[in-house]
């Protein structure tokens, strides 16, 4: 199956309005969904089998240990029989040990086989989980494309209903520029106002009028000195 990007691209190139539908018709969201469902079911089954197989393995492992214990015990018996020079009894015990060892080998083989099955089941589950993740990501891409198209259509309709057109770039730029100019004019006006009404402007005016400032003070001092001078 080709990538979802290919399908999407083909649908977009074909000018399809309903991308989701186009892809459903062409390749099948439903196939994806079915595969996701199948994979999910597979995982459930595999997990059940895995539990069962692991239980059986534990059983077999326990049997191997039990048989091992029995073998050790019987070896001890055989040794004791030999110490008593009871060759016949020792042989009997040895026969039993042979049987136990055969059983143990059988159980050990079962453990190995079950281990292999467990590995297989785990790999199977992993594969199914990856398939689900991939398909869900692909479905999300298709659904998002659809959502975005629908959203765009709604936005266009909504803006049209309010008697304006969606973002003519020129108009937007004009409005932004006008607002920036207005802001700059306001700032310039503010500065002008500051210079006219601020302390600095006022001082300058007072000074010019001879009411305030160093010149006015000097003149006043001179006038005072002249007045104080005895004639």
């Amino acid at each position: 199956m080709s990538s979802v990007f290919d399908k999407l691209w083909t649908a977009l190139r074909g000018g399809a309005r309903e991308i989701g539908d186009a892809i459903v018709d062409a390749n099948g969201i439903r196939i994806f969904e079915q595969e996701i469902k199948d994979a999910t079911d597979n995982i459930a089954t595999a997990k059940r089998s895995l539990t069962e197989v692991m239980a059986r393995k534990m059983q077999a492992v326990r049997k191997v240990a039990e048989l091992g214990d029995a073998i050790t015990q019987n070896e001890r018996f055989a040794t004791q029989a030999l110490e008593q020079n009871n060759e016949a009894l020792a042989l009997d015990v040895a026969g039993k040990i042979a049987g136990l060892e055969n059983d143990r080998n059988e159980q050990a083989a079962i453990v190995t086989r079950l281990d292999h099955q467990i590995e297989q089941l785990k790999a199977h589950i992993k594969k199914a989980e990856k398939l689900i993740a991939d398909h869900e990501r692909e479905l999300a891409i298709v659904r998002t494309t659809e959502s975005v198209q629908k959203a765009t259509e709604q936005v266009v309709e909504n803006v049209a209903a309010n008697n304006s057109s969606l973002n003519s770039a020129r108009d937007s730029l004009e409005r932004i520029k006008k607002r920036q100019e207005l802001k700059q004019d306001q700032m310039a006006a503010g500065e002008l106002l500051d210079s006219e009404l601020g302390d600095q402007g006022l001082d300058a005016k007072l000074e010019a009028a001879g009411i305030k400032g160093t010149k006015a003070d000097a003149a006043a001092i001179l006038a005072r000195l002249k007045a104080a001078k005895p004639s």
Partner: protein
Amino acid sequence: MHRLQELTYTLSDLNYEGHTFNCLPIGGAQNVLQILVSDLDEMPIYVTVTDTQMLCITYLCRRDEIRTDKRDELNRSMLEMNVAVPLSSFALIEDYYVIFGALSTTSSINDICRELVTLAANAYDALEAIEEFLV
């Protein structure tokens, strides 16, 4: 739906780095929320939530507003700029050039605010950059 309503409530009382948000739900089958970022409100942001993402989209201009002989150059410029533009990417949706940002549906309100303010500022810059390509 739920997520967008929640977002409307949360954003209405919020001040993020001196910006406030004006939300207006756009009716229809797909839930879309129009968001105006104060001081950057000439470029509205449209937010839509899918299963996996929260998409914030600003429509820059129609394809036919771009001079035919300059379209390839613009497309190329946008692709080249995409990586460097903070948080936002350029795209085409049907006949519209857009700039957009995609968020995880589990993003924090702080992340969403950052996205919205950045996107609006990017949209202003993008519009100025597009000017020379306009018919």
